[in-house]
């Protein structure tokens, strides 16, 4: 991170408790620089998904401060949340596609919400879908695609509006080795183009021989970074 540059993501003393139950996240301090690719690891139930959900405002922290792309999440009003989400592309393990919609319609959704003209939507969606290697399947329904293809559609949707930050929550969890490799290559490519990526996974093979920063969550607490 260059001196004076604000981090893409910053968490300061963040805790999250659900109701009166267990503490899902405890006093998390984390900074991710713009353009950085960080792996967030830890066993199931360690709080990885909760941390990501806090970043795109699907949950609110119990305490602490969060800023994403210089937006302070704590002071965001309900009407500003969509603006934050347009700066973040989110990819899930279960793809979260609309099964009855075509590949084109699923990806176009992210551009329609920002009010892009139909001709611009068409042009950009085609470009991105070709980029993830599904150019020939534009008009297929999502439900007719394989798991790997569905994940590529989800990635296309997450990046089509060119968000500066990408959050990936176990995106390879449902994929075989070959498809996992394809997804990782796509993520590397997106990072090379300047996107900040926070990649949550419990699959050690993905970050074993990497030069990327790896942060580990254990029972809601952040352990020393590699």
């Amino acid at each position, binding site marked *: 991170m260059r001196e004076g540059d604000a981090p893409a993501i910053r968490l300061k003393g963040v805790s999250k408790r659900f109701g009166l139950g267990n503490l899902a996240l405890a006093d998390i301090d984390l900074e991710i620089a713009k353009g950085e690719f960080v792996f967030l690891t830890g066993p199931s139930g360690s709080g990885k998904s909760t941390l990501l959900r806090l970043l795109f*405002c699907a949950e*609110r922290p119990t305490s602490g401060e969060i800023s994403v792309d210089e937006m302070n999440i704590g002071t965001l009003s309900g009407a500003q*949340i969509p603006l934050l989400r*347009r700066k973040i592309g989110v990819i899930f393990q279960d793809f*979260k596609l*609309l099964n009855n919609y075509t590949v084109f319609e699923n990806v176009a*959704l992210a551009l*329609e*919400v920002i009010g892009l003209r139909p001709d611009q939507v068409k042009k950009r969606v085609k470009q991105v879908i070709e980029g993830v290697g599904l150019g020939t399947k534009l008009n297929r329904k999502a439900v007719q695609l394989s798991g790997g293809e569905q994940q590529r559609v989800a990635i296309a949707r997450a990046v089509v509006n060119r968000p500066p930050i990408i959050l990936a929550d176990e995106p390879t969890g449902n994929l075989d080795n070959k498809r996992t490799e394809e997804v990782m290559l796509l993520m590397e490519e997106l990072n090379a183009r300047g996107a900040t990526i926070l990649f949550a996974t419990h699959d050690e093979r993905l970050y074993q021989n990497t030069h990327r920063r790896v942060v580990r969550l254990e029972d809601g607490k952040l352990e020393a970074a590699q």
Partner: protein
Amino acid sequence: MIISISLRRALADIRQHFPTQIMTTMVVSLSLLILTFFCLFSINLQHFVERFGNELGVVVFLKQGIPQERIPILYQKITGLKGVEAVKYVSPEEAFKRLQSYLKDEREVLEGVDPRFLPPSFEIQVNRAVFNLARIKQVAGEIEQWPEVSKVQYGREWIDRLEAFSGIVRKIVAISGLLLMLTAAFVVANTIKLTVYARQEELEILRLVGATNSFIQGPFLIEAFLQGLAGSGIALSIVFGTYAYLEKMLGASSMFKNFELSFLPWQYVAAIISSSVILCVMGTALAMRRFLRL
């Protein structure tokens, strides 16, 4: 911009979820159908009661030997009463002629009888809008007090019974109408809630990609508006078809020739359509509220 996008998305959604849309519209129209039929029935029942009451004319019998010059004065007095539409003077001779024609072949019993033996009278026709049953009773009592009048006939017993009957009908109509309206509102609101819940994943994804609440709600509200419009339209068409059929049947039957059916006044039609639309739109907005938080 947002309206055109919402319209486009609503039309796409209708195509996408066509069976669900049809199912919701059918539930709306069936719920309203019962209510609309009930309105048609209650309106015709009320009309029947009113018409029956109004057909009971008021006859004012004058005392025998009343001076002829008093007749125009009394005529003016009666005509001046509020709600009196027409007054006809029936002289003793006219009354005698009527009796003769009523007796037909047995008219010889009147041979040798003085044609002036019947009392003169006034037949009063009342304005249906102004004269309700209670007013007839009141006016008859008033006229009875005049010194020239010997008797006022207006079917007191019938009017008392009709009054009691129409009072009960009004209460039944009000209570049952309210219950039916609540039932329709409950069924429609819950059906809409279920259809919104069935599309909960879609709402979640839209929020995820940064859609504003108005972008998410727009197409749903347009769909709800169309469902309300189509649902009430179908219900009213079915009721109108049934009304037209019944009217034709009654017209052809000699027994019910004088029984006039009326369709719902336009105010009722407008109220049914607008409450259906409001119910669907409000139901959708309320059902979506929980998905639009945070």
